[in-house]
């Protein structure tokens, strides 16, 4: 059976189920008695098994089958959840994840049988229930609810189908050839998102055994998803019905399949049959009512009634409809590029408009300006919409962290808890894709270096369980992600000694360093403070990678730490990557753009207001002492002969630090498209973060003021 076209759906869904399982197992560990969680796990494991089975991934299917077995017992109160079981379950998840990775790469699940894990699962099962792992038991349990419900809820809708002459002919011919005719109705789970795909999988599975002759709704309608949650068909085959029912049920998200062998003669006697059917339906209705009575009662104590659980299955917590379209990120990039071009074109119109005032008649010019403003509104709106399309919540990245911290907690033998807020904070897709590793590093760093071991924490009067916080929120044009812990904090003396020891600085230099400068050593390549190298960290390839990764995304990292109380890493990321609002300035006739996001105020000062602190120029303004940076000197421009009396200073801000940039002229605000300088130009100082094309075709450089602090 060719299922390759469903591979992507499979991968996506498996990912979803795995995450779900991971979350549930985490909460199960805290609350082992919670039946809702156990049921959720059972369902997820069951869906995984079904999906793996459909796709023909036998090893994955076997593993999930055994997981399901264990939960079957847990659910029936035959065994309890132990921490050992949770460990093994996490191993299972990792193993399934490994299968999934293989599937992603090669469309094969790989050859690792994971016998050890399966063995452990079965051992736990045996120990927990007090008997040998009874594999045969399982299908029986599964079969039972299916049959019960099949009688009540699922009618044989295929009996209602009316045939065309052509179809009748085909049915007749098939029967004459000695094939058996079957009528079947398939019910799809109501929360299924891709009904057509499921229907297709069922048809594929069935067509291995014979030919489908009649579809209801028509195959075209099924393909277009123009059907409810069931569809019926007749087909001719030489195989037995059971086999066919089995393969169709194996397709995931199929709730039930009902079917039986039919005779051509019976079918053609349609009128008679229909009356009978109506009667049958009435009978079934009655049966259903009878059957319905015990169900609510059973629902009251679900742990003893797996049937009731299965009945509830379709409504389990998932959003029923999801009006989304998947779009290739490259298409979005192309769209973004076009928006960028549009903005450049708009900017050139703006610049023509502002220069051609004299030439054009004044009434024309007025209309022209109005239209340009209109165009400006549209392009800005368009840009925002495209940006929003590219925004995704960071949730997809951070949701794996609780599990990671749990594993670290075991591995490092420290008690710790992760508290996360702001998982719904949105960032550009490209940023989200690359933020995972740096954040993971920071969390590991907090867990390993930050938090003290339990005894020390007790001694210091801190709660035994260390806490790590991950907070994300938006601040202006930036998204801030803070990773903080209540651990030891950074011992700057220690770091300084290490730096001296490694010959990075002399002891004299060390004495003059500020705390921040010392902490910056931690971000240097191969500078590790860990006394021994562990699996977790200590190879000195942590924080420098974090820093360079985040800087590559146009962001930066800051650390604050109080010895004995903990440390906080603040990651600042730009909301958008491609287009920003910027202030255009001129320095010695050269044009530069400064992102509006980092500008605090613009001040006119007199030259004699400049004071000196430690031989550096500062200004004292509204109670703040702000260091001044002369951009012409910084950017190696030709020095100006005469000092001007009045200076334009742009006050920029990074976090809680300020600096004043002296520029010659302000050229107003503009929406600019950021373009890379390319790989040739050595930009090691990173002062220039890119370039942009102005309306008149000139190129202006974009100053990254974050590098000035």
């Amino acid at each position, binding site marked *: 059976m060719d299922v390759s076209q469903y591979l992507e759906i499979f991968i996506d869904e498996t990912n979803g189920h795995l995450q779900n399982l991971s979350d549930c197992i985490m909460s199960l560990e805290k609350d082992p008695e919670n039946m809702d969680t156990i049921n959720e796990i059972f369902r997820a494991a069951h869906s995984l098994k079904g999906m793996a089975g459909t796709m023909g991934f036998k090893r994955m299917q076997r593993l999930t089958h055994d997981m399901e077995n264990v939960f079957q017992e847990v659910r029936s109160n035959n065994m309890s959840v132990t921490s050992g079981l949770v460990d093994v379950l996490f191993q299972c998840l990792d193993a399934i994840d490994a299968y999934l990775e293989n599937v992603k790469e090669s469309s094969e699940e790989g050859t690792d049988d994971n016998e050890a894990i399966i063995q452990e699962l079965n051992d736990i099962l045996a120990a927990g229930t007090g008997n040998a792992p009874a594999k045969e038991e399982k299908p029986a349990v599964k079969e039972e609810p299916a049959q019960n419900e099949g009688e009540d809820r699922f009618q044989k809708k295929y009996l209602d189908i009316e045939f065309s002459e052509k179809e009748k002919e085909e049915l007749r011919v098939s029967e004459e050839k000695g094939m058996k005719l079957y009528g079947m109705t398939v019910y799809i789970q109501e929360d299924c998102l891709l009904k057509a795909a499921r229907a297709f999988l069922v048809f594929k599975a069935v067509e291995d055994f014979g030919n489908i002759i009649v579809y209801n709704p028509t195959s075209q309608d099924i393909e277009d998803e123009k059907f409810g949650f069931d569809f019926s068909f007749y087909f001719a085959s030489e195989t037995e019905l059971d086999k066919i029912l089995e393969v169709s049920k194996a397709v995931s998200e199929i709730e039930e399949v009902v079917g039986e062998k039919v005779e051509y003669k019976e079918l053609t006697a349609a009128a008679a049959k229909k009356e009978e059917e109506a009667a049958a339906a009435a009978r079934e209705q009655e049966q259903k009512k009878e059957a319905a009575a015990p169900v609510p009662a059973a629902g009251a104590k679900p742990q003893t009634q797996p049937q009731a659980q299965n009945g509830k299955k379709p409504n389990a917590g998932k959003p029923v409809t999801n009006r989304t379209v998947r779009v290739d990120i490259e298409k979005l990039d192309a769209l973004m590029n076009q928006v960028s*071009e549009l903005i*450049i074109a708009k900017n050139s119109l703006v610049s023509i408009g502002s220069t051609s005032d004299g030439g054009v008649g004044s009434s024309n010019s007025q209309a022209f300006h109005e239209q340009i403003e209109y165009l400006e509104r549209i392009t800005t709106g368009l840009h925002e919409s495209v940006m929003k399309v590219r925004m995704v919540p960071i949730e997809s990245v951070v949701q794996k962290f609780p599990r990671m911290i749990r594993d670290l907690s075991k591995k490092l033998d420290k008690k710790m808890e992760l508290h996360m807020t702001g998982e719904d904070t949105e960032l550009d897709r490209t940023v989200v894709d690359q933020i995972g590793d740096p954040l993971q590093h920071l969390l590991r760093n907090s867990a390993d270096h930050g938090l003290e071991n339990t005894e020390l924490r007790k001694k210091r009067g801190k709660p035994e369980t260390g806490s790590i916080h991950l907070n994300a929120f938006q601040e202006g044009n930036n998204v801030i992600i803070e990773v903080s812990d209540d651990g030891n904090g950074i011992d700057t003396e220690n770091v300084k000694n290490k730096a001296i020891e490694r010959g990075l600085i002399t002891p004299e230099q060390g004495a003059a360093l500020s705390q921040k400068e010392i902490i910056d050593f931690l971000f240097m390549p191969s500078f590790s403070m860990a006394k021994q190298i562990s699996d977790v960290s200590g190879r000195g390839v942590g924080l420098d990678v974090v820093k360079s990764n985040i800087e590559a995304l146009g962001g930066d990292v800051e650390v604050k730490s109080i010895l004995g109380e903990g440390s906080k890493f603040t990651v600042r990321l730009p909301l958008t990557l491609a287009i920003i609002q910027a202030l255009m300035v001129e320095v010695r006739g*050269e*044009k530069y753009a400064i992102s509006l996001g980092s500008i605090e105020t613009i001040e006119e000062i007199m030259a004699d207001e400049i004071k000196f602190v430690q031989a550096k120029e500062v200004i004292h303004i509204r109670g703040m002492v702000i260091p001044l940076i002369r951009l012409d000197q*910084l*950017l*190696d*421009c030709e020095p100006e002969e005469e000092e001007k009396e009045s200076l334009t200073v742009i006050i920029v801000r990074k976090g809680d630090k300020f600096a004043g940039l002296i520029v010659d002229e302000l050229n107003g605000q503009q929406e600019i498209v950021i*373009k*890379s*300088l*390319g*790989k*040739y*130009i*050595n*930009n*090691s*100082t990173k*002062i*220039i973060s890119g*370039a942009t*094309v102005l309306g008149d*075709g*000139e*190129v*202006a*450089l974009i100053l990254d003021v974050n590098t000035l602090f």
Partner: protein
Amino acid sequence: MANNISVVENGKKQFIVVKIGSEQYGIDISYVDNIVRMQKITRVPKAQSYFKGIINLRGEIVPVMSIRTKMDLEPDVFTDVTRIIILKLEEHGVLGLIVDEVKEVVTLGPDEIDKVAYDAKNSKSNFINGVGKHGDELISLFDTNSIIDETETV
């Protein structure tokens, strides 16, 4: 390598002949994307000395290199025949080279090209991987890869 260049016929290659100072140089035509007139170059602070800056080529930002500075010749003098040769190099992207003048396109066969031995002492010859003979004129052939090489000390 610069040697696996476009083959015109029987191993013949085409070169764009440019003038830098008094010497004639050939640039393998398969690397040349475009030739544009001199235009305003935006200086990039803190860049390598031989990068004059960047230009806007139909909305693309293209870095422009002064091959004179790179070869330790006297600085560029811009005239109305000065051109920027836009090179397109796989992986590395687009790069502009300032030349004094663009003369012609020549086709050279293997027998018309003499290989030049690598001379570590002479930084200028490092950019040349052959000398082409076209009539009575000699054309130094640029090794495009070594032009973009970053090993040179700034």
